[in-house]
């Protein structure tokens, strides 16, 4: 599987673009030792390197929070925009309309997306703005020192914040309700699944939501917390074993029939979902809804590709934009002629 595959020539340390992994690194992280966000950061670096993504094609977007700081810690060679708290969606929408050829990797937090940013989040999904939307979900506001966020479980206790009395918001359920075409949940402690999901997300044409439980080791990492490492390690239930296969590679392992679902991505690659216990169909919205509703009711921590639907048009498609980025249009294409103005004026006389 891909984890075995090294891109580029043989086992060399360069990828198809001739870039080393260090070319995908960012500045040194200033997050706490062991913060879940940092492990997601390294998976983003791995993924971009392994997929040989041209750094100049990427824009790194975020809101405000510890999680939203992460874009500074990967892909130094890509433009980055650390926007305002909860406003990554609108800014990214503008940026992707300006240049639809870019690959937007957005990193947000549960507070940034689930509290102040909930409205923009849902409307971004409605518009199906092409981007990878990563939620580094730790159930607290890390940067403001540990208040409960909207995804904290009801009844949860924290030394500083006390007991949380509110029902949690499920950002995957919200995504499905908003017709998002790629909805996944994962766990920062499950590096391989995170990486495979990232690869799939980066190959998806539309908004791809990854709600990744990413423990805050400083404020919310004790066993009882459903957002902690210990809890995640003990309770994570993958709904399938996911592998991303770039078209270019032949499939190395193959399984007995029926045990695997494959999802063909529109531009070549394939997602392979190996059945674990009961068979799950991520292309069925009804299945996805009931999975989440069950997980919520029984407090189960299900991870994997929950829902995929590649039919919806993206925002640039809806607006019938040319392939040439709007940002690359010439003055001639942008400013109508003197004649055109004369005609408009004549009609107003």
């Amino acid at each position, binding site marked *: 599987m891909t984890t075995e595959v090294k891109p580029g020539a043989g086992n060399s340390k360069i990828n198809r673009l001739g870039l080393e992994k260090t070319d995908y690194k960012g500045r040194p992280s200033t997050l706490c030792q062991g913060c879940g966000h940092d492990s997601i950061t390294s998976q983003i670096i791995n993924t971009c390197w392994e997929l040989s993504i*041209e*750094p*100049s*094609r990427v*824009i790194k977007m975020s809101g405000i929070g510890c999680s939203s700081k992460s*874009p*500074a810690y990967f892909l*130094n*060679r*890509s*433009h*980055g*925009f*650390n*926007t*305002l708290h909860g*406003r990554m*969606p*609108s*800014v*990214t*929408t*503008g*940026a*992707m*309309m*300006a*240049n639809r*050829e*870019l690959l937007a990797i957005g990193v947000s937090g549960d507070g940034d997306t689930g509290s102040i940013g909930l*409205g*923009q989040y849902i*409307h971004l999904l409605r*518009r199906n703005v092409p981007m990878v939307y990563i939620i580094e979900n730790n159930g607290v506001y890390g940067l403001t020192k540990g208040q409960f966020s909207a995804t904290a479980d009801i009844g949860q206790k924290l030394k500083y914040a006390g007991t949380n009395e509110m029902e949690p918001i499920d950002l995957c359920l919200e995504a499905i309700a908003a017709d998002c075409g790629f909805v996944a949940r994962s766990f920062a402690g499950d590096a391989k699944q995170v990486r495979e999901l990232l690869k799939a997300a980066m190959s998806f044409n539309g908004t791809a939501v990854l709600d990744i439980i990413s423990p805050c080791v400083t404020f919310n990492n004790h066993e009882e917390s459903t957002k902690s490492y210990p809890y995640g390690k003990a309770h994570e239930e993958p709904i399938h074993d996911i592998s991303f296969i770039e078209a270019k590679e032949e499939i190395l392992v193959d399984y007995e029939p029926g045990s695997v679902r494959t999802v063909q991505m529109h531009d070549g690659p394939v997602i392979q979902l190996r059945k674990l216990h009961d068979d799950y169909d991520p292309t069925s919205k009804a299945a996805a809804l009931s999975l989440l509703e069950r997980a919520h009711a029984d407090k189960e921590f299900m991870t994997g590709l929950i829902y995929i639907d590649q039919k919806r048009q993206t*925002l*640039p498609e809806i*607006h*019938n*934009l*040319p392939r040439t*980025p*709007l*940002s*690359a*249009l010439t*003055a001639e*294409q*942008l*400013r*109508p002629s*003197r004649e*055109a*103005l004369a005609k*408009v*004026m004549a009609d*107003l*006389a």
Partner: protein
Amino acid sequence: MSMTIEKPTGQAESQERPEIVNDFTIVVATVNGSGSQTANNTIIRSLFKMGIPVNGKNIFPSNISGLPTWFSIRVSKDGYIARREATEILVAFNLQTADADLAALREGSVCLYPNDLKLVDKDNRPDITFYPLPVKQMVKESGVDIKLKDYIANMVYVGALMELLGMEEETVRAALTLHFSGKTKPVELNMGVVTKSAQYVRDNLPKQDPFRVERMDKTAGKIMIDGNSAGGLGAIWGGVGLVAWYPITPSTSLVDAINDYLPDLRVDPETGKHNYAVIQAEDELAAIGMVLGAGWGGVRAMTATSGPGISLMTEFTGMGYFAEIPGVIWDIMRMGPSTGLPTRVSQGDVLKTYYLGHGDTKNICLLPGSMTECFEFGWRAFDLAERLQTPVFVLSDLDLGMNLWMTDPFEYPTEPMDRGKVLSAEDLKALGGTFSRYKDTDGDGIGYRTLPGNKHPNAAYFTRGTGHNEDAGYSERPDDWENNLERLHRKHETARTIVPRPVVDLRPGAKIGIISYGSPDAAVVEARDLLRAGGVETSYLRLRALPLGEETRQFIGQHDEVFVVELNFDGQMRQLLQLHTPEYATRLLPANKCDGLPLTAQFISEKIAKKER
């Protein structure tokens, strides 16, 4: 209008009434949603086509249908287009307000009304000439379908006025043809009622008033347009790429205009692809966010809104200012605070927008005062935004934006697009691959930027609203912070020298100066004539942008007293002028009004005359 308190003009008119030609005001009182706009525009356009200077102002409610609305049409041989408080001809088609409207009429005026409408006070106003019109009957005879009833009813007063004032039937037809963009069926239907009504007046209502119109040549080569359409066209000729907006009166029609024109003007003829996008956002926070995202990405992006939207854009404005991202925000000012009066004019956002954003922010604001400036600033705003790498506000208002104005046709942009300091991959190569996003290389306070997608390995930088050094690296160092603010200050000083300069009319020997901006210009122009007639000579400076410049300081210095004419309660521009010229702070006198109506020349001249007496 019953909504303005009109003091009777003392001197009663003499008995033998001399003709009054091309110099009076018609007020049409109807119920909104009854389609009177068509009728009123027909009157305006046909007078316009007769070569007579004319201007219309719609005083309408924040409501979709059923509430009183007044449309005042000023006919002025001298070319005055400001609102007048006096009314000579009332079309009393709204029974809710008819009596009050009548009461507000000055002596010797005229009143047209549907003959089934009971005017309580009719008999106590022998001074008024009344023309009752058989509206119901004519509508019935026209035999139109019920849905069009109201529209047709309005054509009755068009016909009556045509006959009574002597408007040319052909110009009326031409106006309707323009309105229905040539579709003969509706044109004929409406024309039918117009002529019937005219015929009825001719046969039954002998002319008894002195008001009439007469062909002139004062509109030759001119066009009629509203400021929002002008601004929309300006944006298109400015090469707008993304419009992100959220509907709000009175800015909506600006985006409507863009939507109307873009498909003809900016769809790629070969591919049929759209070289633009207009996105209706979920709110104003999202709209400005999209604008800044696109501006950062290298596209000319804009939004249009009004007061409440400006308030919601406060945080993003501060980020655009501090992270230095171009974007254009139109504020079609309506009456605030809060939701205020959504359909009434004001200039109440001037000070607020200049300082919009917490912390030390100062924003570029353009102040169009005419249709040509709405168009010009429409494209120029993008040049300034990209040159200065900052959000640029265009502060228009409801009067400019939503009313029809007579103007010279628009001039094609006099300058090529200025895309500002953007480094391509090649440029970077030439520079040896070194570049500091926020370094003041040229001493004008403006750094160089690269666009996402730039293939040069050193092109990337990190944009943020937090403290940063010249290389866009995160920094909390006091010296980095201070240096950055000082550079932003230098940039603001640069802006001061390149924003549109004021228009100055300096009168030799004038001790009194007037400073104004935006829609009140028309009233100021007329007021100065009134004052001159009264022996008071004034100089005039019309501001066209913030920050304020040196000419303005000089102008104030050259006069003993400077009246600041504006449409808000606190005299917001006066405050900005006092801060700009502390040495003259006490010379700046308020001449501001804030009641939701366009300013009148009378108000200004009285304000100044009183002070001078």
